[in-house]
């Protein structure tokens, strides 16, 4: 399926990504300056620099991947993917960033789930981008962000959830409308442009799915529904 996107939509996403990159780059610059000012580079938190650089690179790479998947359909290879395994990978990659933001990451992957048809690289990039965006914007300290998967009659739902006040479809639709046009399209979730959220959406759209507001147990967040693979069923 050829994805239809306007040039305006692409410009807005680029603007959003550019805005979001200000923070990790500022962190890196200020960390180095801290060491220089004090004349003691031991003061520099090199782990923070590494994590922020990784986040920024992930955002840029995910953004480019999203565009590639949308516009170069030959890249969109769908294959059976184990969502549970993927969430474990994603959690592992988000861990150091979560620590930097005083947030505990939780995995809720209880149960057996058949593989879903998805582009492996794309799905991972989408979940990572979403995770980074929600971690960075998370206003509360010492709280938990949950990566979860559960089954519904419509498919297998996976997403990232937190102790947010209830998120509504109206807020989400408005955020999609405002992204790239307002400084904070999703102010209930993040102080920044929320670029990671919209990059995730772009990637998932290429896979003919998308993010929706969702609820998992007592937490709210954003999630996507994936269809299970008919070819392979893990016993």
């Amino acid at each position, binding site marked *: 399926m050829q994805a239809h996107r306007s040039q305006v939509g692409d410009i807005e996403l680029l603007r959003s990504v550019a805005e979001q990159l200000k923070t990790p780059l500022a962190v890196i610059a200020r960390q180095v300056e801290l060491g220089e000012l004090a004349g003691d580079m031991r003061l520099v938190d090199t782990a923070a620099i590494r994590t922020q650089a990784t986040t920024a690179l992930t955002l840029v790479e995910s953004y480019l991947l999203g565009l590639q998947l949308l516009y170069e359909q030959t890249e969109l290879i769908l294959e059976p993917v184990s969502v549970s395994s993927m969430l474990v990978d994603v959690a592992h990659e988000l861990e150091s960033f979560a620590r930097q933001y005083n947030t505990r990451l939780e995995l809720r992957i209880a149960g057996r789930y058949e593989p879903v048809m998805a582009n492996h690289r794309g799905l991972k990039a989408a979940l990572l981008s979403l995770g980074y965006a929600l971690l960075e914007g998370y206003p509360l300290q010492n709280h938990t962000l949950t990566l979860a998967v559960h089954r519904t009659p419509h498919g297998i739902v996976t997403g990232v959830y937190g102790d947010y006040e209830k998120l509504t479809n109206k807020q989400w639709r408005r955020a999609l409308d405002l992204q790239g046009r307002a*400084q904070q399209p999703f102010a209930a979730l993040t102080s920044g442009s929320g670029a990671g959220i919209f990059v995730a959406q772009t990637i998932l759209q290429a896979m003919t799915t998308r993010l929706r507001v969702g609820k998992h147990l007592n937490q709210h967040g954003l999630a996507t529904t994936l269809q299970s693979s008919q070819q392979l069923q893990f016993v």
Partner: protein
Amino acid sequence: MANILLLEPDNALANVYVKALEQAGHNIACCVAAEEALSVLDDFMPHVVVMELQLTGHNGIEFLHELRSYPDSQNIPVIVNTNLAPAALRPLLEVLDRDLGVRACLYKPRTTLQRLMRIIAEQARG
């Protein structure tokens, strides 16, 4: 040495600012959101507030209006240190200055720690 209330939603950036300010000998109360910052004011009266305008939930403008509604915090100098691009900030400058007592507006990505600390020290001296 001064009491600084730092309202910065990004924890990683906040950490570096806190370290720099502590190195300079200041006492810091660091908050990520408007509600938290207002709670802190009950027990910690700052000499200077350094804040981002773009916050999760209630934004910096709301915070400032609330801050100025309390007699004991009406005159605390406020330094805005924001990711908001200068062109987007310009329409807000007059009201920030005239009505909300903002003494300086800084563009965060381009503001060095050295410059920030100098401006804080100036404002703390009064």
